[in-house]
């Protein structure tokens, strides 16, 4: 699979689900933010919600680049009735995944995590099919 930075491949049967992926490079996070704000606006989100989602995405994407060895930042943005769901692939080393081990203590440390948790109504680490991702939910309307 080539790294062409292609964006917004909608997958699955879920209405309004957007899968966004960019190479894990700090310089690419702006394009991810722009795409997220485009999607949110297109789905009618208020300016404040657009701003909040964009900020959270920037924090989470930065964390992937700075604290994981992932080559891609992959996220799913989904507008469900009354809420926005954001899922960011942690893309850690699947082979060494130990369900009993604590999460990387360096992950989302400091202000980045605080901001994400202050803005989003729910933040949880989820394991699915051998990989971990962070699911964040913002309640709207």
């Amino acid at each position, binding site marked *: 699979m080539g*790294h*062409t*930075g*292609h*964006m917004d491949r909608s997958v699955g049967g879920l209405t309004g689900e957007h899968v966004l992926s960019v190479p894990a490079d*700090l*310089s*690419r*996070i*702006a*394009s991810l*933010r*722009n*795409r997220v704000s*485009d999607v949110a606006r297109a789905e009618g989100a208020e300016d*404040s919600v657009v*701003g*909040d989602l*964009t*900020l959270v995405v*920037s*924090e989470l994407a*930065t964390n992937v*680049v*700075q604290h994981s060895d992932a080559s891609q930042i992959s996220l799913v943005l989904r507008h469900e009735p009354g809420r926005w769901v954001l899922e960011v692939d942690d893309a850690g080393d699947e082979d060494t995944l130990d369900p009993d081990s604590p999460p990387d203590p360096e992950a989302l440390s*400091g*202000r*980045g995590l*605080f*901001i994400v948790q*202050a*803005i989003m109504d729910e933040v949880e680490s989820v394991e699915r099919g051998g990989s971990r991702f962070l699911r964040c939910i913002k309640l709207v309307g």
Partner: protein
Amino acid sequence: MGESLTLSCGSAPSPVDSGLMSEAVSRLNVSVEGSVVAVEGDVDAHTCPDLIAALEPLPGSGDVRVDVSAVGFMDSSGLRALIGAHQNAEAAGRRLVVARPSSAVLRLIEISGLSDHLHVESVD
């Protein structure tokens, strides 16, 4: 006459991106005149080194005013730059003032609980 310095951060799209006109790379312009540091664009982990570089010498004298009216986006990377410069200013017996904060900057400072910590000029 104060020194004037302009720093620009932003890289041109790589050839592989040439077909993706909607792709945008973080762009930040920081200009310094006297003790006013004017910031324009997006402050994130990619662009914040230029902001840090502009603030590090605590330009001018007295209050260092960081005009963020033209900042469309800032995340915690930018916040760390401001906090670091704020601490440097205090150590030097000066103040860092976050001047003319845009709504994005205000939101970030408020959500981070730093409204009373940083010197934030109220928006007229």
